[in-house]
């Protein structure tokens, strides 16, 4: 076992884990934290991806385009919250239906506007040599991006006054309102924050994963599983769950085949849920 072989396996598994973390973070906020089953999560990622695509074609550099994508998706999420979600808090099955309908509508709108094939952004052809192997520099950037996103979300939700108000509104809406927090507005902002994270994910991933109307489907199932496995300590739990499951699946895929990697992902999910019915973070004494 030479060092470069171990290094490349570790790095490419870390990349897969990071991709999953980036895609899951928005859902962790909306489903894990707020309890809203957002089946349109994949379509919000797609929204961000197309947003970044349009921005780069309009001449913006990639980094600006990604930020633009996140903001635009967040704005759209705020609109969705105002029009649809706010009437359905606490009504799980109804939010399921509503967001499912939204996902279908968004998907078909994308097909109508963009068609089934659109010129993509393309990854920068910069690679880093690791001994005899090489890995795309953009994937290393994604690893860093995942860590930054996690840290930023944690800090926003725990260290800012908005974060405290957001968590209070979710935990006990009536008491929060009694204390003087505008729960309606805060919930809109939190939902927008979650969809903004999804849009950011779309923008970050679009160079590597071609923008197609159905691109969200590849991420949605695994994101939901990661959030369910995560448990009550949503953010840290989701990071650990997505990270571990993504890493394990990728390492298996490296040695066996990608199909085995997928199988291991789902088998691991089943085993973890069997061992920790309320999620892996059930007994953790962390804040978020």
């Amino acid at each position: 076992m030479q060092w470069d072989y171990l290094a490349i396996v570790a790095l490419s598994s870390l990349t897969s884990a990071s991709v999953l973390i980036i895609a899951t973070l928005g859902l962790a906020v909306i489903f894990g934290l707020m309890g809203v089953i957002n089946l349109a999560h994949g379509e919000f990622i797609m929204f961000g991806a197309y947003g970044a695509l349009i921005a780069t074609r309009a001449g913006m550099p990639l980094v600006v385009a990604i930020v633009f994508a996140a903001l635009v998706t967040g704005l759209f999420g705020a609109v969705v919250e105002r029009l649809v979600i706010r009437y359905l808090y606490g009504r799980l099955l109804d939010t399921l239906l509503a967001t499912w309908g939204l996902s279908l509508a968004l998907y078909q709108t994308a097909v109508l506007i963009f068609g089934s094939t659109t010129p993509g952004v393309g990854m920068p052809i910069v690679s880093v040599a690791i001994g005899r192997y090489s890995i795309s520099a953009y994937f290393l950037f994604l690893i860093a991006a995942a860590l930054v996103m996690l840290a930023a979300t944690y800090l926003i939700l725990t260290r800012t006054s908005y974060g405290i108000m957001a968590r209070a509104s979710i935990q006990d809406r009536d008491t929060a309102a009694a204390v003087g927090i505008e729960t309606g507005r805060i919930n809109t902002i939190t939902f927008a924050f979650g969809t903004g994270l999804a849009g950011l994910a779309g923008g970050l991933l679009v160079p590597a994963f071609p923008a197609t109307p159905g691109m969200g489907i590849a991420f949605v199932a695994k994101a939901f599983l990661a959030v369910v496995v995560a448990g009550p300590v949503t953010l840290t739990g989701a990071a650990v769950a997505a990270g571990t499951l993504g890493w394990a699946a990728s390492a298996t895929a490296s040695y066996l085949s990608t199909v085995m990697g997928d199988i291991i992902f789902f088998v691991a999910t089943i085993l973890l849920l069997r061992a920790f019915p309320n999620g892996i973070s059930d007994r953790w004494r962390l804040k978020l």
Partner: protein
Amino acid sequence: MTVLLWARRQLASLCVAAGVLVALPAFSADDTIKIGSLHDLTGGLNIYGIQQAQGLKLGVADINGKGGVLGKQIEVVEYDTQSDLPKYTQYANTLLLKDKAVAVFGGLTSASREAVRPMMHRAKVPYFYSSLYEGGVCDRYNFIAGASASQQLGVLLDWAAENYGKKFYIMAPDYNFGTISATWIHKYAKEMGGEVVGEDFLPLSASDFSPTIRKIQQSQPDVVVALPVGASQTGFLEQFAAAGLKDKIGIVSTNYGSGNQQVVVSPDAGEGIIASQEYFHWIDEPKNEEFKKTWQAAYGDKEPIISEAADAWNAVHLWAMAVEKAGTTDAEAVIDALESGLSFEGPNGTVAYQPGSHHLKQNIYIVRGNREHGFDVVQVFKAVAPTYEDEVCDLTKDKTVSKQFVPE
């Protein structure tokens, strides 16, 4: 009491009226000929399905404009199978039982074809499959309009060996098209003294190709034979290029471009990828310009025309020719007519049904991806016969066989 009596009488007359209305169509003459269309208009496979359906409808419009078939207009009954396999069997049943289609055109993945083919065989309805595939199907009621692996891969791998080297790595989707194509690649590699140094089969939904790329780097091939199917697998080409592998390792494919993947892939990643198929938008054939004009008048010129669309056009024209020759839409007569050596001038030159195998003898083109999201034609192989299918399948002698042959 009188109210009830009144209501009952109204109900009775309503029933009579309804009965008459339902029976009316049976009295009126059936002046259209119904054919069925089963294509993926939504879902990850719609990068193929939308144009397949469009190619079929354009062909039908062309035939109807010239007077239709047997003096009647052709009507296309279209169903969207949504890239979802169970929908294929469901809508195939609908076409056979409710719409009573006299011919069915459809299917993209080999899985969908194999789901529908036995149903068409049992119902004795001609079924046309308009897509390239892994080859070997032998069924009286199935006519293939796309190229088979023996037509594409042999030619492509010879070219790859000459230009890149004889060590191959296979990246294929994990279902019958991918696995059987891989069997072919093993066979051809061995015949030419080459070697398959590794292979990876990926689910259609796979989007993260880091493990595959790492394995490719480890096995150090001269060329990767990539067979990406669907929108998600197109990401492989982008990620492969971004890992800096394109300078050392070539990429050849039998289905890159068949779903306009070169439009999605960036110029850096798409440049230099070699593909082989039975039709490309950029080929120089007598009827291609006219075909492109007709297409663009109907559907605009937003995207290039893919091989499956031309296959669908060819398929419906050949079917119409057979119906005219047979003088009836009766399945057996039409099939006998199709087996009598019919040929048609399509946008990709002359295509002719081999009587025994129900496959087309047609041109195969080798193209190279360029920086304008398109292809440049590199080499043309004229009138390539489906040698494997002609060898293992002779439906003029054995009319009952219904299977797919796979090389050992």
